[in-house]
């Protein structure tokens, strides 16, 4: 009996890591495929470029993982990034704020926005999909209105070199992303806050009964994505030296795709930060490789659409299989 249970346990460990191992294998296969079929894919410069785009996505994908785990979603991150960057530039150019105080204000804005989405969800019972859909439209629309669709340039070399450039051979944003990954990975595995995200996603009613403040946990998760959208907005400005209402177009798709490809269930409860990290690199590598293949950017989107669909198919099957080994009648 005990041996049987142990045997079952070993099998369970295999299933829970299956997704990450599978994704790693897929990542290596895609890497080999592009490396052998194109000339300029397997170069240090190109890898830096892949890492850079994976890093911007990753910074929002880690908090998004928590949001999805708690059974919520934030689809406003693309316009939120664009507006945050624009807001940052407007404060500097139009209102003569310093870079530092502008950054602080934009970060506070991000926290406030997430808090608003969270309050709308927990006190007014508006699904996060609806609130963030409204924001998706409103933030992009307002950004275009304020700028009349034109970019607002800033010129500050120190700011650009420090946050838009490289440190020790890696993009600054990649270092920031790796730091964020460590924090989120650690939080998800070893802290009470992290455990509470999983508990709320696993059984919200039970979590409430036991005494977890479910509303606060959800608000915290939603503050995460908005806060990091604000940070990424500022980092984008550092990269392109301007605020632009059309920036980060479709970024919500890349972020959610990376999280889902990384094995997080849209229905909540399941997901890991390691999976999300792999998902970000995977999505960035495919986007990059398709460009090297000379495929039309519009078709690139089609391919990404197919990938996210397949990822969900695989994901839900793995989840389904590991669940069906679950509460059995004997």
């Amino acid at each position, binding site marked *: 009996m005990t041996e049987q*249970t142990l045997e079952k346990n070993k099998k369970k460990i295999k299933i829970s890591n299956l997704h990450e191992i599978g994704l790693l294998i897929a990542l290596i296969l895609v890497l080999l495929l592009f490396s052998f079929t194109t000339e300029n894919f397997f170069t240090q410069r190109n890898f830096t470029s892949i890492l850079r785009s994976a890093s911007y996505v990753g910074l929002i994908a880690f908090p998004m993982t928590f949001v999805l785990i708690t059974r919520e979603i934030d689809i406003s991150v693309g316009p939120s990034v664009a507006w945050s960057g624009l807001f940052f530039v407007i404060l500097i150019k139009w209102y003569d704020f310093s870079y530092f105080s502008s950054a602080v204000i934009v970060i506070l804005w991000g926290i406030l926005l997430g808090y608003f989405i969270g309050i709308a969800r927990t006190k007014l019972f508006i699904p996060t999909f609806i609130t963030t859909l409204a924001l998706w439209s409103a933030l992009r629309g307002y950004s275009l209105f304020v700028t009349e669709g034109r970019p607002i340039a800033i010129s500050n070399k120190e700011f650009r070199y420090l946050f838009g450039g490289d440190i020790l051979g890696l993009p600054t944003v990649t270092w920031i992303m790796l730091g964020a990954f460590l924090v989120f990975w650690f939080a998800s595995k070893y802290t009470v806050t992290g*455990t509470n995200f999983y508990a709320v996603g696993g059984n919200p009613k*039970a979590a409430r009964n036991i005494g977890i403040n479910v509303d606060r946990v959800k608000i915290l998760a939603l503050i995460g994505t908005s806060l990091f959208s604000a940070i990424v907005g500022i980092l984008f400005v550092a990269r392109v030296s301007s605020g632009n209402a059309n920036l980060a177009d479709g970024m919500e798709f890349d972020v959610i795709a990376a999280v889902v490809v990384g094995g997080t269930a849209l229905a909540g409860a399941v997901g890991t930060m390691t999976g999300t990290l792999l998902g970000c690199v995977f999505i960035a590598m495919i986007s990059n490789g398709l460009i090297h293949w000379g495929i039309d950017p519009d078709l690139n989107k089609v391919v990404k659409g197919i990938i996210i669909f397949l990822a969900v198919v695989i994901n839900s099957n793995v989840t389904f299989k590991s669940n069906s080994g679950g509460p059995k*009648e*004997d």
Partner: protein
Amino acid sequence: MEILELNNISKSFGAIKALDDVTLSLRSGEVLGLMGDNGAGKSTLIKIIAGNFKQSSGTINFENQKVEFSKPMEARDKGIEVVYQDLALCDNLTAASNIFLTREIKRNFGLIKIINFSEMFKRAKDIFKDLKSETLPDEEVKMMSGGQRQAVAIGRTKLSKAKVVLLDEPTAAISVRQVAEVLELIKQLKNQGIAVVIISHRMPDVFAVSDRIAVLRRGQLVANKLAKESSPEEVTALITGAIEKA
């Protein structure tokens, strides 16, 4: 020793009298089977003991002191725990994480608090050993059988050193073999001097573990007697009203 005494408890919801002058007491190490038809007032009584509801009239004594609970947390702090029918477990967490949820053991590293999993696994293992259950602390609950899930839910009451455990339909919706497992868990609680109230529709299960049987009908206590002096037939008659009182 009487650990819990309910004196003349009544509860009305508007014009409906859910409980009518119920007097009942419970000793440490005693298993009380609380029976009755749907709407007889079983759940209301449990909820009053657990602090979910306040009685309209009557008093509750716990360890010979008058108590008034305005919320479940207060009852829990005194040592009264409820294991609900739907178990209130998070499937995606391990058995140990479920037992320690909101009461995690932490290690301090300066400002950062880290969950001490090895200690939690160790303590959970001891709890399951006490309950004579084969549940593994580091296994996710979704992989578990109904009996093991009950062990996790009951394990949570062990952590808080509960003195009274209220079990709401612990043997509903599980297989015969697992019922035996759950009944064994209840016996272990009894052996450790914990007072247990079990609400159930399953007559054989109640008679298998209960020392005493109490029957509610339309809010009134119609029987409160030793299990060995009663029989399933009598209890059935009391529940349906074929026998007025026993």
